[in-house]
């Protein structure tokens, strides 16, 4: 699937022409299909419904209302004299103190106060994408590896590997235990690196998991911590969906475990967070690295020069996130609405005869279509995916693009659309399954 680019006479670098950006995978092909024929309730009711983009639109009204009622967030009228001057000129990579404090407090609230966050350990980046890449530059040399449990977010191939020259070695998980990470799988991945003389620098987990839509259990987190300590490597915990767990008690952050042990060995742990999912503001490009390691904090801060957030946006959000009444209500309501959506989609899928992994977080569910596969292979999965995309016109993400070792699983997003649109999608799935069943019946009866 090589892209034919007419090379100009003057050469470009290997980075520029490489395909490590990974934008040729089905994950992105589905998006293209959507872009070319997007569903619209009124103007294009037969278009492709986007279920491949994990965006949170269920709680946006609360943010909008806040900003309308608090114009001081977006204006400078009520600021102290000289305030604007400082803001316009402020390009310090430490970031606005007020914003870092607000972020730390927000992260604390999401974890029910079970972990404290120090604003001086918050490093700001333009999105979690940049945070993950930055950490990779800091923790690993080119040619080294990060261990990442499968299935994982397709963007990691690009974010962690492209410019850094670092490799991902998968930690294979499967449905036999609900895709949980086991010590055996961790060790197997590590040994795979050893056998290719590759140095492992870190384990990178997403908790709650994308694409599974489930939180990682405390005992598993403890196993992982024990493993990274034993191997003397880092742990990066991407907690971008921490505020999207359906109930406050279900999510355990690695920060809580560290706090409970008085931060023993904490300097190998780094947390990534962002406002793109929980707050539904991906356009704002706000990410953070929270590290318990001073050297990593210092280095990340300096390197964040390449990915600073505009002071204007920092100010806008600082006001909002420092308003504890607002944030408490937002977090609670957002969880509730996501849970309702999840239940809605699960009910719909169940009534169509489709099973999903039991989920408790995130903006998507992990759907099992393996019974429908002609062949239990990656090709079989893509053969099933194609008609779903082009005939049923639903953009869902095939598990192979998430490096899932078991074919037949698909990630289906449910929070980036209205309830009506979700109903339409569920109807289409129902019809699809119905047709499949009747085709199978007629095949059977013809034998």
């Amino acid at each position, binding site marked *: 699937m090589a892209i034919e*680019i007419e*090379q*100009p*006479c*003057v*050469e*470009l*670098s*290997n*980075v*520029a*022409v490489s395909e490590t950006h990974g934008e040729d995978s089905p994950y992105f092909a589905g998006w293209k299909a959507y872009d070319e024929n997007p569903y619209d309730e009124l103007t294009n009711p037969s278009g492709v419904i986007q279920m491949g983009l994990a965006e949170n639109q269920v709680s946006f009204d609360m*943010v*909008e209302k806040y900003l309308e009622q608090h114009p001081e967030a*977006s*204006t*400078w*009228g009520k600021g102290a004299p000289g305030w604007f*001057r400082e*803001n*316009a*000129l402020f*390009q310090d990579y430490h970031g606005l103190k007020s914003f870092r404090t607000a972020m730390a407090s927000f992260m604390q609230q999401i974890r029910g106060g079970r972990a404290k*966050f*120090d604003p*001086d350990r918050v490093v700001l980046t*333009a*999105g979690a994408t940049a945070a993950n*890449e930055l950490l990779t*530059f*800091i923790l690993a*040399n080119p040619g080294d590896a990060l261990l990442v449990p499968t299935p994982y977010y397709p963007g990691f191939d*690009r974010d962690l590997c492209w*410019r850094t*020259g670092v490799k991902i070695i998968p930690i294979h998980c499967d449905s036999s235990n609900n895709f949980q990470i086991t010590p055996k799988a961790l060790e197997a991945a590590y040994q795979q690196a050893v056998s290719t003389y590759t140095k492992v*620098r870190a384990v990178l987990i997403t908790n709650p998991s994308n694409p599974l839509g489930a939180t990682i259990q405390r005992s598993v987190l403890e196993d992982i911590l024990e493993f990274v300590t034993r191997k*003397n490597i880092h742990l990066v915990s991407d907690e971008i969906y921490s505020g999207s767990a359906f109930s406050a008690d279900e999510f355990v952050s690695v920060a809580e475990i560290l706090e409970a042990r008085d931060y*023993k060995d904490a*300097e*190998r742990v780094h947390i990534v967070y962002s406002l793109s999912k929980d707050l*539904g*503001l*991906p*356009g*704002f*490009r706000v990410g953070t690295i929270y590290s*318990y*390691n001073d*050297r*990593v904090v210092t280095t990340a801060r*300096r390197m964040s*020069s390449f*990915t*600073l*957030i*505009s*002071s*204007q*946006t920092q100010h*806008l959000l600082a006001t909002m996130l420092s308003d504890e009444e607002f944030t408490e209500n937002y977090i609670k309501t957002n969880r509730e609405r996501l849970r309702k959506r999840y239940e809605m989609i699960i009910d719909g899928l169940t009534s169509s005869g489709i099973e999903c992994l039991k989920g408790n977080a995130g903006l998507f569910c992990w759907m099992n279509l393996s019974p429908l596969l002609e062949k239990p292979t990656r090709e079989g999965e893509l053969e099933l995916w194609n008609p779903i995309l082009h005939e049923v016109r639903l953009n869902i993400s095939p598990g192979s693009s998430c490096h899932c070792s078991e074919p037949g699983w698909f990630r289906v997003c449910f929070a980036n659309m209205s309830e009506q649109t979700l109903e339409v999608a569920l109807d289409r799935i129902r019809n699809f399954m119905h047709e499949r069943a009747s085709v199978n019946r007629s095949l059977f009866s013809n034998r």
Partner: protein
Amino acid sequence: MTQTRSTATETDDQKNRSPSSGATGMKLIVPLQGVVQGRGGLLLGSLIPCALFYFLQLYLKRNRSKNSSNPPSPSASSSNLPELPRSSSRTNLSSRGSIGRVPVSSLANMIAKPDSSPYYIGLERVFLDPYDPVNNPDGIIQLGLSANKLCLDLIEKWLSANVKESLIGTDDVSLSINGIAAYQPFDGTEEMKMAMSNFMSLVLGGSVKFDPSNIILTSGGTPAIEILSFCLADQGNAFLVPSPYYPGFDRDFRWRTGVDLIPVYCRSTDNFSLSITALEQAYSQARKRGVKVRGILFSNPSNPVGNLLSQDMLHSLVEFAQEKNIHIISDEIYAGSMYGSEKFVSIAEVLDLEYIDKSRVHIIYGLSKDFALPGFRVGALYSFNESVLAAAKKLTRFCSIPAPTQRLVASMLSDQRFVQEYISTNQKRIREVHKEFEAGLNKLGIKCAKSSAGVYCWADMSELIRPYSEKGELDLWEKFLSVAKISITPGSACHCIEPGWFRICFTTLDLEDIPLVIERFGRVVETCKSSG
């Protein structure tokens, strides 16, 4: 960046945790018995040392993980922990485990070292002791950061009048906040690209129409420069850069890319102008050393000198690049900060000849200097090369401008009346302050290079330094910091080959501030002259 493992760090760590020889000794005695007693012969004789080595490694490894639960630093021993209140600020974490026993990358180790460049040290010193006319009149005056405060009042006024609509929007749904919350194209919204290309068409000489489809927007000029380095050169390659040059290029172009910068020295005898001869020389020398030169990088208007490249010189540069089949990056970020009588000519103006391959030319721009909004992080990469644009576009996922900022800035830049007023007022004020400031320096006997743009003077203090060397220059720099309490940038930080030159930014000053600043300069100048 070479593919070195950070074995240095690990070895140090191992040394810190080497077990007592006694304990090791015990393990060694038993297997040695056999060898000592002469049994086993050659096989055992070679096998046993290997086995011993293996066991030693195993022992060390086990010991290392045991020890990692006990932080080596005494101030951080576990017994202290229960006394610390839970809710206290986590700065106490910095006393614990901050040595970083778990290794980080070679790049991180390099970056974590305290900055040795005076450019950054100066910034740090001002940060710790900043001048304030009321609260800290003896603090350090910042003349080492090229920021322009002269026209902030104009921007402030515009924002007060317009920001609510431009940000939150009207009843029009497309302008509402909903429109800016969602994922935007990483390389910038259509609206912002349009506004930026129009602004560039106005400010970069006014003779070229910049096309919005050739623009990539980034969070500041810094990532734009880095993106070009990633796209145009491989690790180990190099770009030629006329010196003295902006200290930030070392970080932006080299840090994470592994690409090198080879200075092409310019001299005061011809007002630090670039010559093609010097470029040719640098190019051949690089080739002799086996270094592949992928392009030329320069600022025009120049930073730190403030001079302009003439149309002829731009032609010659393009022809040079054509002949060698390499790239050109022209950082034109100061194009709107003109105060002299010369006219700015963008490299884009000289590309219309048929035999010129435009795809080798790339321009960097941004709003941090001309539009005084460095905090907003608005940068642009402009290229005629489709492949570069395609690659750069994908790389902007790591450095996009937030949508609310794009909305706000696009709105501001589209207000043509405001933009015109801003540009002409800015140029007028820069001219005034520059004139006064340079006159003040001249009165002290300090001459400056001839310049027509930028927000700084390039001052010749070579007669004040003892000895006439980089050391003498840095001594003077330190004197300015500690005695005169002024932060300026020494030429060595800019890779200037002649010692004694300093970059002094003047746009953070009002006209009224100038006498105070000149008086401070005077303190040091007098002491230098009297001891000389």
